[in-house]
């Protein structure tokens, strides 16, 4: 059996290795195609990531300024309420406060849109990052 094993090993060693330049060229062309595709994908991902960052930045700034305005107006409203509590025209102030409340609900709706935009941008960024890792 060991003689046969030696014969087998020798037979494998003597077997011809097929040489084909066409094969090397095909592999080379496939590598070049893959690299071009990878570069295009990378550029697309970079553009997507840039767009995502821009959207997040824009939405973030809007949310920040929106919240600031909301804070100032809420502060102003509360100040008016306090003043109204000591004033004879208290019912009028209450009505104004109620109107301001409707405005608050509307601004909450706008805020929700911003939250959705930020969430979508973050999700898009996460997907772009994940595909870049792949």
């Amino acid at each position, binding site marked *: 059996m060991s003689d*046969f094993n030696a014969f087998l090993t020798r037979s494998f060693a003597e077997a011809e*290795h097929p040489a*084909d330049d066409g094969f090397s060229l095909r592999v080379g062309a496939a590598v070049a195609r893959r690299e071009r595709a990878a570069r295009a994908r990378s550029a697309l991902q970079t553009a997507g990531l840039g767009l995502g960052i821009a959207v997040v930045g824009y939405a973030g700034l809007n949310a920040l300024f929106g919240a600031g305005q909301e804070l100032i107006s809420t502060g102003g409203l509360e100040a008016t309420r306090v003043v109204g509590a000591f004033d004879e025209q208290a019912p009028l102030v209450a009505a104004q406060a109620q109107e301001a409340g409707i405005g608050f609900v509307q601004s909450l709706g706008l805020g929700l849109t911003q939250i959705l935009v930020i969430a979508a941008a973050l999700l898009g960024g996460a997907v772009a990052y994940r595909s870049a890792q792949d």
Partner: protein
Amino acid sequence: MAARGVLNLVQASEAALIIAAQARDQAAFGELVKRRQGWARALLRRMCAGNAAEADDLAQDAFMKAWDRMGDLETPAAFAGWFRRIAVTTFLMAKRRQKAIFEEIDDASPIAAEDSTPEAAAGAKIDLERALSRLSDAERLCVTLNHGEGMSHSEIVETTGLPLGTVKSHVLRGTEKLRRLLEAA
């Protein structure tokens, strides 16, 4: 510039080509493919029972995977073993897709009946190829890696993921089948 590059590639050592390919040099990888393709295709042809077209497709897949993973190769000296593992994995994945890897071929009748074909005159090399084609995929894989590539049973286990007992059994049974086939021829 291009001519000097080609000349350098032709004269470069395999280690230098591998290091350049790791730096994403396509020309260096092309030269590496040129030098290694004969060995890789012969290995896969044996595994594919002489089906040259399938073997060449798998060899191309294996080289593409190697290009993608060049960064994983720790030292240039490990290239042969590292690439062999990629080639074997590519073969196993293809066979699993075909659901054919453990298909057993118990027919170990002598191949003398086919000796009247012109290939028979080419001698033992063709007999070996033909005898290999009579083994099951798993036996052929294990025998080729053991006798053709000089891998130990534990190395085959590590490369193929098959259990040690299965590898030993396939090598033993495959070798015995080859002996019966070749001695009768």
